[in-house]
């Protein structure tokens, strides 16, 4: 019997297997005792310490850097400036495109944003490097600065025609609609602010480079280093067994990494670069600021006739990042006429990047606020209007949903929240001086599929190991891969070890796009079943096996023991069997790649680029995770202070591999959404484009005291189209829709519609 013959799994504890069980983290003890070693804590002998020097102007060029005083400072070993040729070549991007017009210059003379690295100082100690960096005399030629998306000189940007979506005749239908709501919605720059700052240790041994750097994608980041330095891929190893939060920021190598590794090569000595907390606001990009003009046309009953979206987002002057403001807009509601266009505006910022649910998050803020405005305009309940416009299929792709339990999410969320007791009128619920508002919004995140590779070892002591280069950034990869192997192998969870986070290990995609769990559980299951089949074949056929003469044609592997399916034969432990047949281990490596990628080039491309990714509508279905958030806010009538008092959120993420970990992901996303709604905003000095709140005191993150009671409800069912084991994405969908739910609740409490995040008290008094 193999796993494939076992009864259908429902994804909860009723299955009785390891998958779906509420198990505690495999890596829990290491983390709780301080023994988990993050990248910069790696003990490496002979380290030199590097300090990155950021530009203090927003645009222009470095005229000259006088390094004499810095060089004379104690302990200084190396100073790199735009005067140094680092000899680097461009790296391939995630589309598998490699610029041919090299070299790659991570310390350019031209300044495109405030905080751009202009020098690296390396010394025997961090203090010496810091002091020497202070002694650099940097002369700039300043140019005109465009500090942000809404700056007067930012302009309208350029159209992104490839993102235009249209069906029907949206403009005409909007003009003809009896009810129209039209408004402009804004979201600011937001930052990952992972508790573990970025940085790396780079060590060269001849032409081999080892990089310890926090990573969501070891293989791709290792490839970047190899290409920068013109090395064969196997000469670079990127190691990242534990990652102190990523949220999208740790999927790629950045310029500071290239500079530090170049310094290490030049010095012939390992170099450690800890990017300081303030530098973490400019060394890599956060979420781009966005602006959306959104118009809904509807019947007097609130049935949508047209949606017209005109959006814009910012990027840098040196790179392209598109925060896709129309990512959720066409998916949420049935609408016969639709038009979305987006423009991209280049400003003087570091190139923005992926932050938890990129695109979907600002997109949902606009559409889910607007639908609430429509509900008010036609006198409908916000829940009712969502049912009236329920999308029975993907309105854009015109494909059936694989699974869409949005009705169940709305119903069960409303029931748990007590939504039926809501009074319709704004400002109609209060508790003394506190205005009470109840708001609702929904969210979505696509199912993204890709391929993975894993190695499974059954060891002589009856335990097993799972090995892959995928990473665990806190979402629980260690745990769910052990659960998957335990169930497939019939070996207890406690006897499975998992090794992750090293580009020298089998291939895996980025821990991003909420796809790693679906991809890697599939790969581990495949490898584990193959290992199990090999073990059973040996048990049936090996001359020294006690099962040789039982006449059984298959065997059962459960609780670490092997037995014949019907009854009275021998029962031996896995370890004992391996001992009897004289095997040290069984080792199987499997991948889930299709035939056309089973080449060295195909494999390399699959593990290091996004070109093998399949989007949510690549097959016959449209596949997404869904959620509905119900929020109670309390607003002080006199001071305008806003507190989220309680939340209920219902999720359809397909089958959950570990509800304890999945619920934690949902709650974490929800709380990041509370930050987005009420706290988080990168403030830019309009004179010089500098992010001025570039620290954890001024860039406000949610704390324990900001967090209400949050109840999460699972309404998902296994989705056989979404992944091998039936799960959809979990990590990102939780943040999507939280900000509009809170904004809608604030409107219900106060009668004020706030369309610019974050919602602060000045908007309410």
């Amino acid at each position, binding site marked *: 019997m193999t796993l494939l013959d076992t009864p259908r799994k429902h994804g909860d504890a009723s299955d009785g297997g390891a998958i779906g069980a509420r198990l*505690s*983290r495999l*890596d*829990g*003890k*290491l*983390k*709780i*005792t*301080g*023994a*988990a*070693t*993050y990248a910069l*804590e790696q*003990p490496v002998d002979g380290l030199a310490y590097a300090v990155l020097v950021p530009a203090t102007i927003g645009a222009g060029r470095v005229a000259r850097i006088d390094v004499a005083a810095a060089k004379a400072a104690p302990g200084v070993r190396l100073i790199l400036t735009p005067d140094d040729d680092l000899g680097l070549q461009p790296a391939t991007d995630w589309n598998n495109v490699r610029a041919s017009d090299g070299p790659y210059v991570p310390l350019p003379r031209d300044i495109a944003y405030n905080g751009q690295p202009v020098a690296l100082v390396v010394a025997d100690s961090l*203090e010496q490097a810091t002091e020497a960096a202070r002694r650099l005399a940097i002369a700039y030629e300043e140019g005109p600065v465009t500090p942000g998306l809404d700056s007067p000189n930012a302009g309208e940007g350029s159209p992104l025609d490839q993102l235009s979506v249209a069906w029907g005749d949206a403009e005409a239908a909007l003009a003809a609609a009896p009810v129209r709501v039209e408004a402009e919605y804004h979201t600011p720059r937001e930052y*990952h*602010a*992972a*508790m*573990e*700052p970025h940085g790396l240790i780079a060590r060269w041994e001849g032409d081999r480079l080892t990089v310890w750097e926090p990573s969501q994608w070891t293989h791709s980041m290792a490839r970047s280093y190899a290409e920068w330095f013109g090395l064969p891929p196997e000469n670079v190893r990127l190691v990242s067994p*534990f*990652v*102190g*939060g990523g*949220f999208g920021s740790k999927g790629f190598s950045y310029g500071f990494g290239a500079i530090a590794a170049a310094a290490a090569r030049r010095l012939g000595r390992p170099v450690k670069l800890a990017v*300081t*907390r303030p530098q973490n606001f400019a060394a890599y990009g956060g979420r781009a600021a966005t602006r959306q003009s959104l118009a809904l046309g509807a019947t007097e009953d609130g049935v949508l006739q047209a949606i017209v979206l005109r959006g814009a987002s910012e990027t840098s002057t040196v790179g392209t990042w598109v925060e896709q403001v129309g990512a959720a807009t066409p998916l949420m509601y049935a609408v016969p006429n639709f038009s979305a266009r987006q423009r991209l505006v280049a400003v003087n910022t570091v190139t923005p990047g992926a932050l938890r649910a990129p695109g979907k998050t600002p997109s949902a803020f606009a559409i889910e606020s607007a639908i609430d405005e429509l509900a008010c305009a036609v006198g409908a309940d916000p829940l009712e209007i969502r049912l009236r416009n329920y999308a029975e299929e993907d309105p854009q792709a015109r494909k059936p949903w694989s699974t869409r339990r949005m009705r169940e999410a709305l119903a069960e969320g409303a029931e748990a929240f007590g939504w039926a007791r809501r009074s319709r009128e704004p400002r109609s619920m209060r508790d003394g001086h506190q205005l009470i508002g109840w708001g609702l919004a929904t969210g979505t995140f696509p199912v993204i599929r890709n391929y993975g590779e894993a190695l499974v070892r059954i060891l002589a002591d009856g335990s097993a190991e799972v090995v892959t280069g995928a990473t665990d*950034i*806190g*979402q*629980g990869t260690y745990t769910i891969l052990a659960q998957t192997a335990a169930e497939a192998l019939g070996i207890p969870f406690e006897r499975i070890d998992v090794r992750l986070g090293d580009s020298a290990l089998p291939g895996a995609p980025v821990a991003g796009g909420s796809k790693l769990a679906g991809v890697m559980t599939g790969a581990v299951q495949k490898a584990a079943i193959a290992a199990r089949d090999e073990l059973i074949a040996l048990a049936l056929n090996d001359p020294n096996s006690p099962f040789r003469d039982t006449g059984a044609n298959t065997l059962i592997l459960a609780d670490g023991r092997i037995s014949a399916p019907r009854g009275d034969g021998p029962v031996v432990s896995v370890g004992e069997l391996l001992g009897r047949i004289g095997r040290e281990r069984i080792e199987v490596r499997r991948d889930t790649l299709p035939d056309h990628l089973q080449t060295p080039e195909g494999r390399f491309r699959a593990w290091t680029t996004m070109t093998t990714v399949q989007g949510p509508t690549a097959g016959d279905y449209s596949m997404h995770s869904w959620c509905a958030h119900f929020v109670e806010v309390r607003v002080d009538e006199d001071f305008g202070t806003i507190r989220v008092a309680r939340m209920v959120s219902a999720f359809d993420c397909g089958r959950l591999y570990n509800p*304890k*970990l999945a*619920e*934690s*992901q949902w*709650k*974490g996303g*929800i*709380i*990041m959404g509370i930050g987005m709604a009420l706290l988080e905003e990168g403030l830019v000095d309009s004179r010089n484009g500098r992010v001025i709140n570039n*620290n*954890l*005191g001024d860039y406000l*993150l*949610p*704390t*324990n*005291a900001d*967090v209400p*009671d*949050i109840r999460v409800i699972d309404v998902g069912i296994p989705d056989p189209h979404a992944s091998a084991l039936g799960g959809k994405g979990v990590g990102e969908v939780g943040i999507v829709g939280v900000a509009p739910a809170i904004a809608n609740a604030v409107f219900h409490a106060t009668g004020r519609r706030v369309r610019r995040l974050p919602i602060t008290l000045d908007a309410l008094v």
Partner: protein
Amino acid sequence: MSSPRTIRFTLNGEPVSATIMPHETLVDVLQHRFDLRGARESCGQGLCGCCTVHVDGKPVSGCLFLAVFADGARVDTVEGLARGDALDPVQEAFIEAGAFQCGFCTPGFVMMVKQLLKEHPEPTDEEVRHYLTGNLCRCSAYPEILDAVKLASARQAEAARRA
């Protein structure tokens, strides 16, 4: 000019000494001289709590606390909580409640919760939320951290009743 000096202190119950520079912070000394990496610098401003350790029984931000001030003191870190394989009840409660994801901030939270339960053995939800506001968790395992504190508190009370 500053010059090295030797400090002696009790680290997780063991007498130790280190020759350090006066500007070195306690978290640096713990990380680099004693290979104790649970207390970590994240914000560098004493705002996030990732570097929380106890000095003479009181939590301090190790990224701001100069190591020279630990001279003669008792310093306790997350690494000193477990007794062999037996975790501290707060550590056990954190694992059971699922009170962390990436784990980077977790040792700081655990040390702060030790102090919280010393001062408020049976804290209310609001007491927990406000007491722990100086510790940031960007994964935002805050609800589970609250659960963990309540769990540890209940077990502590149960143990006290039995004793």
